[in-house]
């Protein structure tokens, strides 16, 4: 198996050559990927907000942000600076501790989930054995923060919004986990790296979307519901609930919800691209092309090209999904809460179960195509 570019090994080796002990070199390496991913995730907010505004504008025949920076790219930064300098108000009868803790609990798991998002064979913070399961576990923490902020705002709209958000994310977690389980069944591993490797080798034909079309749809719908994107944004439905659990929030506490929702959207898109769209794999397998022109896989320049192409492919797939999410936002009307729960429990859950059983049966019948 092609090991890909090994940045950690090169970094440690370089420092050891400079006369630093291997342990210290590894310790110096540790924070680097985390910082890079953290910055990347934060930048992705700006990109996503800009895309959201521009695509929305295009879909409505508007121009969108135009004057803040070239093509309005700095609009999100302007919004962020505004939110930072806004007065931080805690309502008089609110519970100040829970009110402050709520947004943090919503945001932290989302950023933590970036631990397992791979951008290449070795371009990941940690290759955990529990991989994708960690993401499911972490995303189940968010409802606690939502309930916390909904309860502590001391506002009926907030409480209802928080309860709705928690109910929604609990209901849609189950079909999502079942869809993931079908993928895991094929790759025989929970690790995100193994899941991508199982799809590699055949270019676009090897991606899981061909073997799991139903699972892909279920996962994408459930992911949209988890992110509270528009067809499922009823926790903050402004016609009924003002702004749901965000009603009483201002300043950076509101900003945290905002950041959380966009990072979550990007994260979900990344996970979908990893699970179903072959992660960092290009539509035409790079290693196959390389063997065609007779270049060894361990050639340094090829490794650099593969790694950067992998990062670009992952991001491209994720942002294509974000584009679809934004387009869906202006296409679909918001559904009612009873329709939401009916859809989750009476449609997605049975379909996901059938999909899981079918996958298991196909795996037994055709172990070649479905990961024996």
């Amino acid at each position: 198996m092609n090991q890909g570019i090994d940045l950690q090994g090169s970094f440690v080796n370089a420092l050891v050559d400079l006369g630093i002990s291997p342990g210290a070199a590894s310790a110096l390496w540790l924070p680097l990927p985390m910082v890079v991913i953290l910055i990347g995730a934060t930048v992705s907010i700006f990109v996503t907000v800009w895309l959201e505004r521009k695509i929305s504008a295009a879909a409505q025949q508007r121009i969108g942000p135009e004057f803040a920076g070239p093509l309005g790219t700095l609009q999100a930064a302007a919004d962020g600076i505004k939110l930072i300098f806004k007065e931080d108000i805690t309502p008089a009868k609110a519970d100040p501790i829970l009110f402050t803790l709520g947004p943090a609990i919503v945001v932290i798991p989302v950023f933590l989930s970036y631990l397992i998002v791979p951008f290449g064979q070795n371009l990941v913070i940690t290759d955990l054995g529990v991989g994708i399961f960690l993401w499911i576990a972490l995303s189940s923490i968010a409802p606690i923060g939502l309930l916390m902020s909904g309860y502590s705002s001391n506002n009926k709209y907030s409480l209802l919004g928080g309860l709705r958000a928690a109910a929604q994310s609990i209901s849609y977690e189950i079909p999502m986990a079942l869809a993931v389980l079908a993928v895991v069944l094929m790759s025989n591993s929970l690790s995100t790296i193994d899941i991508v490797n199982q799809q590699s080798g055949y270019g676009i034909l090897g991606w899981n979307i061909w073997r799991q079309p139903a699972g892909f749809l279920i996962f994408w719908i459930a992911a949209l519901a988890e992110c509270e994107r528009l067809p499922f944004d009823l926790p903050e439905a402004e016609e009924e609930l003002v702004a749901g659990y965000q009603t009483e929030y201002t300043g950076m506490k509101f900003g945290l919800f905002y950041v959380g929702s966009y990072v979550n959207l990007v994260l979900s898109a990344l996970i979908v691209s990893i699970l179903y769209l072959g992660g960092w794999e290009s539509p035409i397998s790079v290693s196959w092309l390389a063997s065609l022109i007779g270049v060894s896989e361990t050639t340094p320049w090829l490794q650099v090209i593969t790694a950067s192409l992998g990062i670009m492919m992952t991001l491209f797939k994720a942002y294509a999904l974000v584009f679809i999410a934004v387009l869906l936002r202006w296409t679909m009307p918001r559904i009612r809460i009873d329709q939401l729960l009916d859809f989750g429990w009476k449609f997605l859950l049975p379909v996901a179960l059938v999909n899981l059983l079918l996958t298991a049966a196909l795996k037994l019948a055709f172990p070649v195509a479905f990961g024996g």
Partner: protein
Amino acid sequence: MTLAEGVQLVAFGILTAMTLGGALGVVLLDNIVYSAFLLGGVFTSMAGLYILLNAGFVAAAQVLVYVGAVNVLILFGIMLVNKEQEFTPIKQAWVGKVATGGVCVGLFALLTASVLNTPWAISAEVPTGEMATVVIGIHFFTDYLLPFELASVLLLIALIGAIVLARREFIPDVAPGEPASEALQLPERPRELVSSVPGSEPGR
């Protein structure tokens, strides 16, 4: 002491403090919502302890099941049940308190005894680590099959019980074959429609 050991020690200290402090808070705080949220904190720090024990899968399962499901359900229960009751002081409440205290002290003594009597030798076995998922799965379907299935039956019973409790009996508006009762109709006299015969229309 290497860096890893130091980190482990500090993390253990913090997690233990969080677990113990959170657990005390769950029991001692007056506000039940605080107790529920602190319970979530206790579960999370227990997951952290599992990670320290190289049991990543169990830690993730702990977060998913206890924090993500059980604790959220407890919170739902607290927030949706809004029954205010008068506080009536019970006579001889001290009996209960003393009994609880006795039970607690007894439990504590029992646990202390067992902690002191267990030989805490660190086993030489290599921790399974990443392969834990596979090992757990094998155990579930071989030697622990009965407890596993019993637990699922228990969950099924709870599920059906919840459905029975939550399900409202279906009350049809009108029983089939029975004419609609007049009790629900408005006490208005039925109006004669204006006849459509030509010549009888007003204004001609």
